[in-house]
């Protein structure tokens, strides 16, 4: 059997497919710091980043800062937000704290984390479809409402570029988006669905389509290609 359609994938893994349906629409809902329309625009912008000439030139340069210019954008989002979306999509291994602080100064720390989290969930789902040669999903419908702009309690400086939950019971990567809990839910769900799967994460032997060593080999290869230190 070959994977040539969404229907085949749904037949093979209904949980994953229905989970993607739910998460994808969640990306289009109104967030805490960005409206539904802005989040949908961000997803369109992330797809556009893969065709952006500036991003292509920067990714080939010794450092991204060597190449000035404007992104080939498709949205009316603020320029710092567009830069975040494009760089996170196309050159994540060379983001810097100075650059992040400039974006945060322009759009706020909370908006930065929410936008980054939306783009990461979107990237996981789009990447999954590209990996299996499935068509990319249509953009989600934009939900109504206005961002509440409520910062959660229990977050602060724990040594990252952005505030996170100060409760250290979770791994740093597991609380990376804790500044925006309503969007963090989508992030945690997609990671659980694709990789960690609850209590299974602590087991060294997995009863899946691949063994745990095979899964970790894939994970390490992707992380090395992206030059991700964590």
């Amino acid at each position, binding site marked *: 059997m070959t*994977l040539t359609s969404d229907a085949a*994938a749904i037949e*093979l893994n209904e949980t*994953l497919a229905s989970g993607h349906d739910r998460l994808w629409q969640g990306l289009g809902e109104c967030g805490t710091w960005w409206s539904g329309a802005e989040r949908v625009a961000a997803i369109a912008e992330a797809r556009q980043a893969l065709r952006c000439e500036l991003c292509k030139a920067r990714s080939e340069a010794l450092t991204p800062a060597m190449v000035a210019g404007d992104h080939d954008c498709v949205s009316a989002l603020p320029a710092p937000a567009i830069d975040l979306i494009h760089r*996170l*999509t196309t050159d*994540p*291994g*060379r*983001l*810097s*704290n100075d650059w*992040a602080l400039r974006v945060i100064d322009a759009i706020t720390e909370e908006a930065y*984390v929410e936008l*980054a*989290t939306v*783009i990461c*969930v979107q*990237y*996981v789902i789009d*990447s*999954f479809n590209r*990996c*299996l*040669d499935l068509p990319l999903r249509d953009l989600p419908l934009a939900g109504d409402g206005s961002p509440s702009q409520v910062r959660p309690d229990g977050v602060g400086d724990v*040594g*990252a*570029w*952005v505030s996170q939950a100060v409760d250290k019971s979770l*791994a*740093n*990567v*597991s609380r*990376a988006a804790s500044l925006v809990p309503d969007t963090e839910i989508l*992030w945690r769900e997609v*990671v659980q*669905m*694709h*990789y960690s799967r609850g209590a299974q*994460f*602590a087991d*060294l032997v997995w009863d*899946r*389509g*691949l*063994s745990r*060593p*095979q*899964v970790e*080999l*894939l*994970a390490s*290869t*992707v*992380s090395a*290609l*992206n030059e*991700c*230190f*964590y």
Partner: protein
Amino acid sequence: MTNGDLLVRYAESAVRGDSDLPSVRKEVELAVGTHGLIEAAATVSAFEGLNRLADATGIQLDAGLADESADFRTALGLDSYSGAASTTSQGSPGRAADVMGIFR
């Protein structure tokens, strides 16, 4: 590792968007089955996202992770990655007793 070379080729081709992705995908499906291929796609895509969120938020290595990797990070060139600047502790070489111990 069984099919290790093939899985690495799949991950490389998928992340880079190489033109040989369709043929490598077929090889993977033949070797590990359709569910294995879906598992591979789920893992590759999960880490495409995990890498990006870790890099965008500048998180530090957890203490256990710094210890676990202290004796091979430099040898593998990991300390030269841009994101290494986010972590202040180099860690002391050591092995965690279990998976969760890595993230203490």
